[in-house]
């Protein structure tokens, strides 16, 4: 599989269909690697220990200046590329996916092709069983127990924003926490600010999160961020049939509405 991946990447660079390939390095932890020469494509690997969502790099101005770019993309990253396309964050034709899965190189795709690949080979991607179990565990607790659980978890948050940096969906040039006129979210790594930050971060991903897990993997404190993301993901699917990453022209869930949306909880 690696051979096929590396050859395809080298070919893209040779043919100048990409000037840069963003992939995973053959080192412990599988950090991101940036390859611009065909002969360096031997550095590219992919396996299940790759946890970064490489689509996050598309938000970096330094990399936007080096388009077109090819990104090694397992299914969750493919979804992110499609979401970014749907949200007009990627100039058309400037990003290609080197699609991979556990043991196969699946080919080179543009956003439309990636969406079709996902629909045919990876339909209905959702939270893994273990994650759903974590959500179920938490849902069994009382409101007060849940509040205490999150208070304890959020107390560990240092507001390093590794979660935000890891997420391709967090691409605001000025994040809400960085607005100080007025200061909407306390920047102190204390209870109330931590609660607001973590809840709003998750909420801003509603209907957009591709469940790549990069945020939770990046968190130095081990916060269970995926639990927040999974709950919103399932709710957005159930209520609004939200399937982020399956349609490069998909309308954003929060930015659109239907007259039939539920409001049974409104008095």
């Amino acid at each position, binding site marked *: 599989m690696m051979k096929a991946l590396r050859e395809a990447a080298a070919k893209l660079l040779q043919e100048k269909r990409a000037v840069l390939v963003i992939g995973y390095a053959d080192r412990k932890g599988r950090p991101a690697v940036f390859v611009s020469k065909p002969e360096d494509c031997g550095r590219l690997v992919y396996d299940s220990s790759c946890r970064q969502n490489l689509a996050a790099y598309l938000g970096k101005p330094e990399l936007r200046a080096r388009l077109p770019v090819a990104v090694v993309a397992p299914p969750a990253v493919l979804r992110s590329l499609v979401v970014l396309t749907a949200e007009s964050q990627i100039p058309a034709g400037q990003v290609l996916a080197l699609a991979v899965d556990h043991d196969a190189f699946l080919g080179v795709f543009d956003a439309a092709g990636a969406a079709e690949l996902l629909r045919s080979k990876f339909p209905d991607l959702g939270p893994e069983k273990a994650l759903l179990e974590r959500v179920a565990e*938490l*849902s069994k607790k009382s*409101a*007060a*127990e*849940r*509040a*205490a*659980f*999150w*208070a304890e978890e*959020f107390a560990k948050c240092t507001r390093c924003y590794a979660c935000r940096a890891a997420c391709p969906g967090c691409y605001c040039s000025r994040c*809400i926490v960085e607005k100080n006129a007025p200061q*909407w*979210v*306390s920047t102190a790594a*204390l*209870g*109330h600010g931590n*609660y*607001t930050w973590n*809840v*709003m971060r*998750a*909420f801003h991903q*509603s*209907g957009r999160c591709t469940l790549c897990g990069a945020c939770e993997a990046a968190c130095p404190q081990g916060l269970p961020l995926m*639990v*927040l993301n999974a*709950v*919103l993901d399932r*709710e*957005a699917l159930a*209520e*609004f049939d939200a399937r982020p990453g399956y349609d490069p022209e998909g309308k954003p*869930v*929060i*930015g*659109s*509405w*239907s*007259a039939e*949306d*539920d*409001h049974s*909880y*409104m*008095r």
Partner: protein
Amino acid sequence: MKTETSAVPAATAFEPRITAFVCNWCTYAGADLAGTSRLQYAPNMRIIKLPCTGRIDPLFVLKAFEDGADAVLVSGCHPGDCHYTSGNYHARRRWTLFRKLLALTGIGDDRLFFSWVSAAEGQKFADLVNDVTAKVRQAGPFRAANPGRRA
């Protein structure tokens, strides 16, 4: 049909502090109507007027809880009646998801309330305020169990 709503019960130890985010054209007007109709309703709600529920960022709700609100009410125009055509539809989507997220973190239906109140529904507004206030009074102060409150 009720023409008068019950006044606030006398001398209780805990008086809830409830923040309400309402839209200008429907709910706020409905509240005005309750007032001009001399309907009595609990004074525990502090009303914050916005042009439309579509303007209400979920962050406002969190700030209210940060500042110590025992409960929050969000209220606007009935679907189809929005002064800005679709603001309340956008809002509705947000709230459906937001309330699930908040419930996961321990802020549930006993603390976060949503309603549609039109400009003609002065009685509904008064009843709503009394009902919500009574429920929150029963639920008690949110201080200790509020995960988002400022220490």
